[in-house]
């Protein structure tokens, strides 16, 4: 016959101690976890300081995305200015790897902090982030920007 089972009493003691400890629960809809600055969730357009976008429609992000969940529909006008018809982003197939953001040479997109991405309707997962918008043209001091460069509907 072995000695007294002291181990299980230790275990029981810890259980009783835990009754009086603060819990470790974050009650989700009421309380939110702290999301770090770097957290990668859904892709979003990074607004510049004046609130406008900086996407130059270069399509580098399209090529960087391993799952092809970014798709840009672009119309190029005769003066070679670009117009973004749609900036499709499929949240359903995005795996938040952040490669598009790393690839973007113009700092136009970022990984957002919106983590409530579930939808009952799969169609809602596909977002048009920049609908019918002229592409950003970086102002060059040597050659002033033509104010009508963007909105070419032709």
């Amino acid at each position, binding site marked *: 016959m072995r000695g007294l089972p002291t181990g299980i009493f230790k275990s*029981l003691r810890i*259980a009783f101690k*835990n*009754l009086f400890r603060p*819990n*470790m629960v974050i*009650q989700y809809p009421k309380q939110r976890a702290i999301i770090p600055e770097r957290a990668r969730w859904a892709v979003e357009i990074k607004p510049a300081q004046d609130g406008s976008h900086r996407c130059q429609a270069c399509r580098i992000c399209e090529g960087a995305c391993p799952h092809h969940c970014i798709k840009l529909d672009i119309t190029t006008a005769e003066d070679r200015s670009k117009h973004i018809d749609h900036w499709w982003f499929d949240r359903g197939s995005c795996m938040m790897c952040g490669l598009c953001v790393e690839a973007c040479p113009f700092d136009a997109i970022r990984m957002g902090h919106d983590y409530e991405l579930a939808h009952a309707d799969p169609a809602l997962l596909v977002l048009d982030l920049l609908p019918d918008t002229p592409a950003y043209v970086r102002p060059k001091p040597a050659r002033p920007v033509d104010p009508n460069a963007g909105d070419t509907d032709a």
Partner: protein
Amino acid sequence: MAMWLKALLFALVGIVVMLVNGAFIIYMLRKVLGHAHLRLGPTELGPAGLAQLIPDILKLLTKEDRHPNQTDKWLYCLAPIIVFVPSLTAFAFIPYGEKLVAANPNLGLLMMIAFLSVVPIGIFAAGWASRNKYALIGAMRSVGGAISYEIPLLLAALAPVMLSGSANLSDIVHAQAGGIWYILPCLPSAVIFFLCAQMETNQTPFDMAEAEGELVAGFSTEYSAMRFGFMYLSEFAGNFTMAALIATLFLGGWTLPGVDPATMGVFGPVVLVLKTYLVIFCFMMVRGNFSRYRVDQYAALGWKKLIPITLGWTLLLAVILKVLQMVGLWGGWS
């Protein structure tokens, strides 16, 4: 006619008490386990999550009552009832007060344990009828456990019977009201009874029949809807009955030390229920923290340890009592 009405009334009260009690124990289980695990348990519905049970019961009632192919139809339907009814009947023998006892036979203790022993038969029927290997293994384990643990359970219950000289539960309570609680003179019996009660009610260190990590859900794997609800409820009813039996046998039942039983009045049931919930709380703390025994270790614990220990201890107690009586220090068995 009056007798008949009275019996019906008692049955009705019993069912209502069992339902309310089952509901409360489920809530208590969630809360106690939650806080012991540094969680919270239900919080959303009602004050402190108290109303969580209403949707739970609604869910059980509205779920599809499924009959898997090839089940033994009659037995499959009958098994939850076989499990449920004895748990309910055993309620009748617990004395809640001076007059508040539905059935008070001379061998009340034996009757109560006898009724509780029917439960494993229902569990076995459920497992057998389900035609599921996991359910069958669970059912076999349940029967094996019943064989191993009901002997030490009865032997452990002998100590209070010897001390009070009666197997009538009311008499045992009265005997304790006059002297001391029997947990003090027969602590080993109390501990062993506690262990065996855990086995009887399928609590975690001994939850062989259910063993959710191993057997999916054991005997109730194939059950759904209210048939499962009955099994679930009877588990908690058995929990309450066993705890109440421990409170009655070892913790003075509905009486308090130093208080005249005649003056307890309406406080009797309150005291008993409080003691019972204290025991259930201990059950839950054990349940939430311990590993499960393996089935052979579990049988070995019953046969090789608990039975010899209870036999030896009961014999020793009997000899001590006889000697004390001969010397004149103890005036029992009058």
